[in-house]
C-alpha cells in the first residue's frame, strides 16, 4: 500500500467561474502555495496546456492535479479538477463537478456576476457540491468589493461572512482559501469493499499510453492487470497503469475509493470511451452505474473543406488526430460540388467549432472553408416518419414535409440595465420569445429569452458584445424543439444551385437574407466571359436576383517601353488566380467569395 494518508484527508474540488474572472491565475497561485511548482518554473496558467488555451485565457480540456497542503499541522491531499468555462462544454463541466465534493466559485470583484457564473453554479448545485464563494482580483483599482458581495448575497443567497477575498495575481487570501477548502469541503465517502465504481470525467489521447482516463474512484479499488468494464459502452480492457497527476504522471500501484487519478488500459480509440461512463471490474461488476451519464451530442454542424482540394488527406488526418482528444467532435465525409471533398463536422457549439478551425490552421497549417453552421432540425414527413437533418442539403423536398421543428435555447444574458432596449431588439430580430428579466442589482439585469439555436449560431454573440460595448455576458441551455416555418434557400449561379451556399432559414427572413447574399456575391465574383445571373430561390421560386455583367476588358493596353517580362508575370499571376477559383458549372468563383458569404452576416 502506497497510500500515505487516511482518506478523510482528501479533498476533491473544482474552481468554477465566468470566462476571464481569473480562474487559471488563481489555480497557478494554488499550485505555487502547495509547492508543486516554484516561482522559477512557473509559467502562467500551468493547467492550460494547449497553446490556444493560454492565448484565449480559457480552458478547453480538463486537467486535474494532486496537491499537498498543510492545515493545522496535518497534511491533506487536495485534488484540483479544472473545468472549462464555456457553455459549449457544459457537459464536461458537469462531469468534472460530479467528481468533486466542493467547488470554489470565483467572481471578479470588478465585473460581478456574469452569465457563466450562474450557469456553472447551477451545475455545481445539481451535484450538491459545497460552494466556497470567492471575490477575485481585489487588487484591481476598479474592484468594488461591497457591491459584488451584495450581488452574491442578493442573487445567489450567500452570507456575507462566507465570501472570501483573494487576489490570484498577488496571492493575497489564497492560503486562507485553501484552509477553507479543507475546513468546509467534505472528504469523499470511502467504500473500499463494494465492487469498483469509477466515474470517467475526462479522457485524452497520449501518444505513448493510448487513451488516458481521468477518473474518480467512488467505490472499491483498481489496480494494474484488472479487467475493467465500461458500463455504458459495454467494453472490457486490461489496466496497464494507474496513478495520479501532479504536473506529470505519478504512477501508483492502486487507486482506491475517494481518490482522483488516471487509468490507462491500452485503449487505442477514444470513441470507445465515454465521459460520464462508469468503470467497474469485469469479474466483479457493480450492479448499478453511477448516475448522470448522458451521451454527448453535437449541436452545431458545418461542412469543412480544404481550400486546396489536394490537401483533403491532410485534413482527414488532422481531424482524426483532433478527434483522438475530443470525443465530442464528430466527422463524416461530405462531398460538395462547389467545394470538393471535405467533412460534415459536428460540434458542441460555436466556440468549439471556432477552436477546431483555429487548431487546424495553427497546429496543422491547413486553410479551410467552413459552410454556414447548421443545427439539427427535426423534420416530419408526410408518411409520419421523423428525420434529423444536420445539413441544408439533406433537407427533403418541400412537398414531402409536414412540419419542421428546430431547437430552442433559454438564455441568460447579463448586462447593465441601460442596454435592455437594444438587447431585446436583437433577441426579437433573432425570433426570440421574451420570458422574463431578473434584476441582479439596481443596475444589472439577467434577460431570459427563448431563441432558436439556429439564430444564435450566426452572429448573435458578436452583435450582443458590440451593442453592449462588451458589457453583456451570455449563456444558454437547450430548452427543446418548437415548430417553425423554415425553408431551404438555395443560391443559383448561372442557373446551377451552389450546394455549399444553401441555408435553412425562417420564411420571414428568407427574402432579406437572400437579397443580401446575392448582392454580396455580385461584388465578389469577378466578371466572366458571359453574363451570369445570381439568384436566391426557395424551391422553384426566385426571391432575389442580381447579374454579373460580362467581362469587357482584360488586356494590357500599353506594352511599356519593351518591358515584356512584366507582362508575362502579370499573365502568370492571373493564371494563378484562376487556379484558385472553383468552377461552379461554367462560372469561376474565387474562394474568397465563399469565405466572405460564409463568414459574415447581414
Amino acid at each position: 500500500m502506497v497510500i500515505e494518508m487516511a482518506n478523510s484527508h482528501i479533498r476533491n474540488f473544482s474552481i468554477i467561474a465566468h470566462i476571464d474572472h481569473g480562474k487559471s491565475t488563481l489555480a497557478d497561485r494554488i499550485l505555487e502555495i502547495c509547492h508543486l511548482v516554484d516561482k522559477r518554473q512557473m509559467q502562467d496558467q500551468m493547467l492550460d496546456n494547449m497553446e490556444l488555451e493560454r492565448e484565449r485565457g480559457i480552458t478547453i480540456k480538463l486537467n486535474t492535479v494532486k496537491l499537498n497542503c498543510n492545515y493545522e499541522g496535518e497534511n491533506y491531499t487536495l485534488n484540483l479538477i479544472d473545468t472549462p468555462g464555456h457553455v459549449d462544454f457544459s457537459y464536461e463541466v458537469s462531469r468534472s463537478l460530479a467528481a468533486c465534493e466542493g467547488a470554489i466559485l470565483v467572481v471578479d470583484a470588478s465585473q460581478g456576476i456574469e452569465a457563466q457564473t450562474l450557469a456553472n453554479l447551477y451545475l455545481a448545485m445539481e451535484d450538491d457540491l459545497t460552494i466556497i464563494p470567492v471575490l477575485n482580483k481585489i487588487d484591481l483599482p476598479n474592484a468594488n468589493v461591497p457591491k459584488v458581495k451584495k450581488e452574491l448575497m442578493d442573487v445567489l443567497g450567500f452570507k456575507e461572512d462566507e465570501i472570501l477575498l483573494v487576489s490570484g495575481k498577488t496571492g493575497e487570501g489564497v492560503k486562507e482559501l485553501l484552509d477553507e477548502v479543507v475546513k468546509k469541503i467534505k472528504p469523499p465517502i470511502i467504500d473500499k469493499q463494494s465492487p469498483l465504481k469509477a466515474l470517467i470525467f475526462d479522457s485524452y489521447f497520449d501518444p505513448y499510453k493510448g487513451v488516458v482516463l481521468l477518473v474518480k474512484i467512488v467505490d472499491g479499488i483498481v489496480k494494474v492487470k484488472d479487467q475493467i468494464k465500461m458500463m455504458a459502452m459495454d467494453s472490457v480492457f486490461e489496466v496497464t497503469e494507474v496513478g495520479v497527476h501532479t504536473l506529470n504522471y505519478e504512477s501508483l500501484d492502486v487507486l482506491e475509493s475517494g481518490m482522483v487519478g488516471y487509468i490507462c488500459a491500452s485503449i487505442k480509440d477514444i470513441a470507445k470511451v465515454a465521459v460520464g461512463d462508469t468503470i467497474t471490474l469485469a469479474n466483479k461488476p457493480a450492479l448499478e452505474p453511477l448516475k448522470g451519464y448522458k451521451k454527448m451530442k453535437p449541436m452545431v454542424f458545418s461542412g469543412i473543406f480544404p481550400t486546396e482540394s489536394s490537401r483533403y488527406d491532410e485534413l482527414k488526418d488532422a481531424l482524426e488526430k483532433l478527434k483522438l482528444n475530443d470525443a465530442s467532435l464528430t466527422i463524416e465525409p461530405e462531398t460538395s460540388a462547389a467545394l470538393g471533398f471535405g467533412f460534415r463536422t459536428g460540434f458542441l457549439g460555436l466556440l468549439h467549432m471556432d477552436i477546431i478551425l483555429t487548431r487546424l490552421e495553427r497546429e496543422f497549417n491547413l486553410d479551410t472553408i467552413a459552410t454556414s453552421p447548421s443545427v439539427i432540425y427535426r423534420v416530419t414527413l408526410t408518411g409520419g416518419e421523423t428525420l434529423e437533418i444536420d445539413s441544408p442539403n439533406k433537407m427533403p423536398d418541400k412537398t414531402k414535409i409536414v412540419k419542421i421543428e428546430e431547437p430552442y435555447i433559454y438564455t441568460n444574458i447579463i448586462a447593465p440595465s441601460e442596454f435592455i432596449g437594444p438587447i431585446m431588439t436583437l433577441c426579437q430580430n433573432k425570433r426570440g420569445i421574451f420570458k422574463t428579466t431578473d434584476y441582479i442589482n439596481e443596475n444589472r439585469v439577467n434577460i431570459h429569452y427563448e431563441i432558436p439555436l439556429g439564430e444564435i449560431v450566426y452572429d448573435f454573440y458578436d452583435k450582443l458584445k458590440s451593442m453592449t460595448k462588451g458589457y453583456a455576458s451570455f449563456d444558454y441551455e437547450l430548452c427543446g424543439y418548437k415548430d417553425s416555418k423554415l425553408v431551404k434557400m438555395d443560391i443559383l449561379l448561372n442557373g446551377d444551385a451552389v450546394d455549399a451556399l444553401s441555408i435553412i432559414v425562417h420564411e420571414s427572413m428568407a427574402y432579406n437574407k437572400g437579397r443580401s447574399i446575392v448582392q454580396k456575391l455580385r461584388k465578389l465574383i469577378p466578371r466572366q466571359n458571359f453574363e451570369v445571373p445570381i439568384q436566391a430561390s426557395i424551391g422553384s421560386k426566385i426571391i432575389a436576383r442580381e447579374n454579373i455583367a460580362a467581362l469587357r476588358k482584360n488586356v494590357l493596353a500599353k506594352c511599356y517601353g519593351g518591358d515584356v517580362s512584366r507582362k508575362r508575370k502579370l499573365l502568370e499571376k492571373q493564371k494563378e488566380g484562376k487556379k484558385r477559383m472553383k468552377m461552379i458549372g461554367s462560372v469561376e468563383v474565387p474562394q474568397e467569395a465563399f469565405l466572405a458569404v460564409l463568414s459574415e452576416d447581414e
Partner: protein
Amino acid sequence: MEKIRAVYIHIPFCKQICSYCDFCKFYYDKKWADEYLQALEKEIRDRYMDETISKIYIGGGTPSCLNNEELDYLFSTIKLINLAENIEFTFECNLNDITEELIDKLLANRVNRLSIGIQSFDEDNLKFLEREAYFADAESKIAMCKSKGLTNINIDLMYALEGQSIRTLKKDLKLFLKLDVPHISTYSLMIEPNTKLAVKKVQAISEDLDAKMYDIIRKTLKNAGYDHYEVSNFAKPGYESKHNLTYWNNEEYYGFGLGASGYTFQIRYTNTRSLTKYIGGNYVMEKEILGEKEMMDYELILGLRKTKGINLKHFYDKFNVNLQNQYPVDELVKAGDLIYEDGNIFINPDKLYIMNEILIKLV
C-alpha cells in the same frame, strides 16, 4: 538566332511629372543629366556588340528636355552605333519642346520619326493628367515638322480617364485626326502603383465605359484610313512602327539607359532604376534567362497583340515545332477565341480587349 537589329535608349528626365506616369524618371537637373549621359555612353560602349541597327528609339522620360549641348553629347554617343542605311530613328518629344532648332538638330542626326505625347486636348483631361497641350500649337508645330520633311509622326492618345465622357473622347479623336499624322497610339489609363494617381487613390472608370471607348476609337480610326495593327496602335499603310514591331515579333533588342528593358542573347533584362548604381556601372537589375518554352510563350503573348497574329510557318521555322502541337490552339479556334486564316492565327477582333483571358488558356 537572328542578329540584334533594334536599340532602345532611355532618357529618364522630365521637367514636369505627369500624374499617371510610372516610367523611370527624375526632375531634370543639369548636373545629373551630364553624369547620366556619360554613364549611358559607357553602358553602350560596354555592352553593344557592333551589330548593324535598323531601328532605334529614344524614349523617356522626356528626351526633348535635354539642352543643346546634352543633345549633341547624346547624338555623338549614338555615333558609336552602326546605323543601317534604311534606319527608322524615332525620337520622343514633348509638344512644348518642339522648336525649329530642335527639329533641325534631330534631322541633322538622322532622326526620321517623331513620337509626340499629346494624350488629349480636353482641359479637364489635361488637368487630371497634369499635362499641357493646345491644339493650335500642335497644329502649327506638326505642320512645321512636315514642311521640313519630318512626316513620319506618331501622337499618343489617352482615354478611360476619370470623369471622361464619350463626348470628350469623340472631340479628341476629331482633333487628332485633323492633325493628319500617319500613326496614332492609344492608351487606356492604367492606375499604376507609385504614381500620383495611385497616391490620390483615383479609381479606374467602369470597364464597360472603357470597352465602349475602345470600340469608338477602333471604329473612328478605321474609318479615317488607319489600320488597327496592334492592340493599341493604328497606322496609315506603311507607317507601322518598325521599332515597336520588334517587341511584338519577339525579336531581340538592346535596351540602354536607366530602367530600360532589353532582350539580348536569349536573356530578357531590366536595368536598374537607381541613378547612382547606374552611374557606378551596375546596369542590370533583373534577368530572365529564357528556355525554349519561355521563348515560345513570349512569341504567343506578344505576337497575338498584332491583329494579324502569328504566322504558323514562321513559328515553325523559328522553333521547329508546330504551334498547334504545342498549344491548345484548335480548341480555342473552335471556341471562337482565335481565328485561323491564310496561315495565320490571330485573336478574334471582338475579343481583343479581353485577350488576357485567351492567353491564360494558351500559355
